[in-house]
């Protein structure tokens, strides 16, 4: 050994561990940093960067099409300054810099950063404990979904009040774009963020995630990304839908930079989170937890991470190219100078379709995970559930161009893409089969989480069947770009995705907060939202069938009725969601204290005490049986076996 000084040691989980030299108090510079310093750093650096750029940019600077460049440069500098300053203020760069200079983190440092003995303050810091990160994710996600939901209400108000128009078309377009992308971001993280971080390590019997500091990085990058999206609303907005097709996006006001920066940062956050979750799942499962003993929820999160990992870079690069088009006058998407609009569409949808499954698969996995608990029987055909998830992941990367049937980019490619798209209904069908089989003859303990699962399966069926129309090129020739598409993907992303997330949050609420989610208020909220959901989107299907294009703020009289009903439904959803939110808030503050295993579940995360201790398991558990070991012997099986025996006997006697 090259270190000749006496090495201090510390007892970590019963082992004597040599420690690197401690520099000052544990935590070092991180002691002084929290969300407040992050905000100060972010806003401060943003202001300075914007001010310097404004001084350096000549006011006459303009690009080839006479657009004044000063607002662009200044806004971009402000956004970059915000991200760097915020992460600096949070202390995200402390770890890497300490690594470079060779001052390794000691056990005391690590414990400080995991939030030991910090009380509530740890939620406002760059805390590495996966449970804190999970709660942070939950709160951030609720904010994002609330913001996007607010825009949804405004959009439906505009569409429902056919006799008057509230907003200008530009602002309306900017609302639909921001609503879309905010919902997508929120829905992507709503399960893999809070539940993936909080629950998965406990579910597999680990003490923390594989890379605790990357975990903190991913959540705070998300926190840094979202304000940029909100700020773009005030800079002219994203007037191009959530997909911001080029070259229309090149015509949008400077607010487009907010979108592009948000996606670039969010994609980094997602990649880091995916790597972290995948590594955790692959390497840190408890002793004895073989793949057939791993709960299905872990598979779901793993699958979502796989898809997020390979798909998001395409989206990120599409936005980087769009950003350089805007700022440096490159011409990737400018068809005047050799750019191609189809290039953008391809890059975008290379993300776009896997991303749908990034939202859906965790939600289905949550449903499958909690069904055995409430039906008190094992998951039906575990292998098929796994096969379904694997099949979806395998096909997800091969179907992107079904969003581009009508673009004319390659008419001959419609045939293979139609084939692959319709093939995906087979693995998705496996998941439905598993759900059906688990319901089969189960004694339903009809608590709120299970009821949400019923809603998920119901919506998933409608969304799936309508998806079949859209996957078919001839039918898509009518439905593409119409309200039918909007209704379809809301059934998938909201009906299946968001209700699945509600199921998951309600189910894991006792473990995460130590209190039971109020059954009564929560159910009222859930069912109100569910009914409103059906009203809204079934009448939106009708509008689409009648031929209403999507993303329009004014339409023919013949669509009035369906839009009006749709808007009423949307208000009902809004009320239902607010009721559900109030259930979360009141239960979190003053709900019934939960026992450590209120659902009587057999999986690992419920076997540790609530509130969960810092290291989850004082002694790492050993798994000895398959998951979902519920159930009693089946009386009918005995009957069938006796029939078989009779028959063999008969055959033998003949």
């Amino acid at each position, binding site marked *: 050994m090259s270190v000749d000084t006496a090495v201090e040691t510390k007892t970590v989980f019963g082992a004597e561990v040599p420690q690197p030299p401690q520099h000052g108090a544990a935590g070092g510079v991180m002691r002084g940093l929290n969300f407040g310093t992050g905000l100060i750093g972010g806003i401060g650096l943003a202001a300075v960067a914007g001010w310097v750029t404004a001084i350096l940019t000549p006011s006459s600077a303009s690009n080839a099409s006479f657009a004044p460049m000063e607002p662009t440069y200044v806004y971009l500098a402000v956004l970059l300054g915000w991200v760097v300053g915020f992460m600096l203020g949070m202390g995200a760069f402390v770890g890497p810099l300490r690594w470079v200079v060779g001052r390794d983190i000691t056990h005391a440092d690590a414990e400080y950063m995991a939030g030991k003995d910090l009380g509530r303050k740890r939620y406002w810091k760059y805390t590495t404990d996966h449970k804190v990160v999970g709660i942070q994710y939950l709160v951030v996600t609720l904010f994002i979904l609330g913001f996007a939901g607010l825009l949804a209400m405004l959009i439906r108000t505009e569409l429902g009040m056919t006799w008057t128009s509230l907003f200008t078309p530009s602002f309306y377009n900017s609302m639909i774009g921001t609503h879309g992308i905010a919902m997508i971001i929120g829905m992507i993280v709503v399960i893999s963020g809070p539940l993936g971080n909080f629950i998965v390590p406990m579910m597999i019997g680990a003490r923390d995630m594989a890379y605790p500091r990357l975990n903190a990085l991913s959540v705070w990058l998300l926190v840094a990304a979202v304000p940029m999206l909100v700020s773009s609303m005030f800079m002219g907005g994203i007037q191009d839908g959530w997909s911001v097709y080029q070259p229309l996006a090149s015509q949008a006001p400077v607010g487009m930079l907010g979108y592009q920066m948000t996606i670039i940062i969010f994609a980094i956050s997602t990649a880091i989170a995916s790597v972290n979750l995948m590594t955790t799942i692959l390497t840190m499962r408890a002793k004895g937890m073989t793949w057939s003993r791993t709960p299905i929820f872990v598979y779901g999160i793993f699958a979502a991470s796989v898809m997020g990992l390979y798909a998001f870079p*395409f989206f990120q690069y599409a936005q980087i190219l769009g950003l350089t088009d805007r700022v440096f006058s490159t011409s990737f998407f400018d068809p005047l100078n050799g750019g191609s609009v*189809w290039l953008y569409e391809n890059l975008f949808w290379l993300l776009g379709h896997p991303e749908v499954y990034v939202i859906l698969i965790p939600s289905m996995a949550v449903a499958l995970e909690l069904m055995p608990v409430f039906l008190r029987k094992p998951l039906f055909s575990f292998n098929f559930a796994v096969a379904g998830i694997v099949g979806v992941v395998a096909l997800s990367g091969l179907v992107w161009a079904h969003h581009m049937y009508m673009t004319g980019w390659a008419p001959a490619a419609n045939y293979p893409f139609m084939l692959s798209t319709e093939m995906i209904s087979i693995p998705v069908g496996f998941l439905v089969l598993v759900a059906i089989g688990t319901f089969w003859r189960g004694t339903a303990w009809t608590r709120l989480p299970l009821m949400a699962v019923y809603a998920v399966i119901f919506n998933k069926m409608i969304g799936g069947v309508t998806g079949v129309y859209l996957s078919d090129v001839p039918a898509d020739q009518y439905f593409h770009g119409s309200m039918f598409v909007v209704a379809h993907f809301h059934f998938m992303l909201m009906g299946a995705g968001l209700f699945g997330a509600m199921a998951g949050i309600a189910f894991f609420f006792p473990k995460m907060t130590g209190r039971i989610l109020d059954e009564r208020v929560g159910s009222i909220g859930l069912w109100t939202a569910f009914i409103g959901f059906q009203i809204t989107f079934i009448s939106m299907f009708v509008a689409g069938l009648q031929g209403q294009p999507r993303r329009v703020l004014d339409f023919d009289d013949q669509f009035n009725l369906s839009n009006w009903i749709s808007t009423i439904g949307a208000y009902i959803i809004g009320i239902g969601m607010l009721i559900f939110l109030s259930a979360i808030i009141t239960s979190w503050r003053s709900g019934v204290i939960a026992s450590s295993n209120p659902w009587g579940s057999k999986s690992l995360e419920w076997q540790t005490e609530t509130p969960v201790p810092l290291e989850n398991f004082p002694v790492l558990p050993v798994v000895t049986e398959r998951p979902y070991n519920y159930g009693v012997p089946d009386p009918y099986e005995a009957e069938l076996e006796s029939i078989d025996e009779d028959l063999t006997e008969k055959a033998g006697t003949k």
Partner: protein
Amino acid sequence: MSTSTLPVSPTTGEPITTIARRARLGLWLLIVADVAGTIALVISYSYLWSLNVNGGWAPPGATLTANQTNSTLPTTPSTATFAVEWPFWAILFVVVVATALMWFGYRSARSGNHAGLMVGAGLSFLVTVAALIFQWIQMSTFPFDAGDGAYASAVLLLCASNIFHLFLLLFIGMGIFMRARKGLIDKTNWYQAQLLSYYMTWVCIAFLLGAILTTFMVESPNTDPAIFGTFKQQ
């Protein structure tokens, strides 16, 4: 040496081999994400090359004649020429040298040759700096600007991606060197040097992809694209 126990992580108490295994997996996964991003660039380059929309993939030094363009549009066709291709290969060579040095350093660390590690990591760092400078010189001396059509855009972004990779390598390489100097990388704890070697190998491949694209996919195969905004072919 034989008496010393297996080194363990100071924070979690796990054996360093476990940590190394985990870190390797994480690196491979991060490389997957990086590969996807690089493939996005490759797709962009080859897609624009194959389409030559509106004749905007750089026509080498020539401008379109009046009847070849849509005269109603306020646009000046690109006059860019193609970049010289050998610097791409030269920079690739420099990066390969840096990678080889890093591999040498890492192998030395594994076999307990501390001096070899210092030499490998240090020289690799210096060569990476050289590659960065070369890349910067190449980027700033292209015979075109970012605004000169699709070819110019695609090539410049490939170079920008290279520069981004080189900056990452510099940061990590500096860390490896400093840590090697402090004795934090040695015969029993060499995985971080290994990770950098792996990552540098991938960066070489990324550079290679860029060099292949810019060498073998220059003149667009589509010689009569549609003229923007009209129903005419060029």
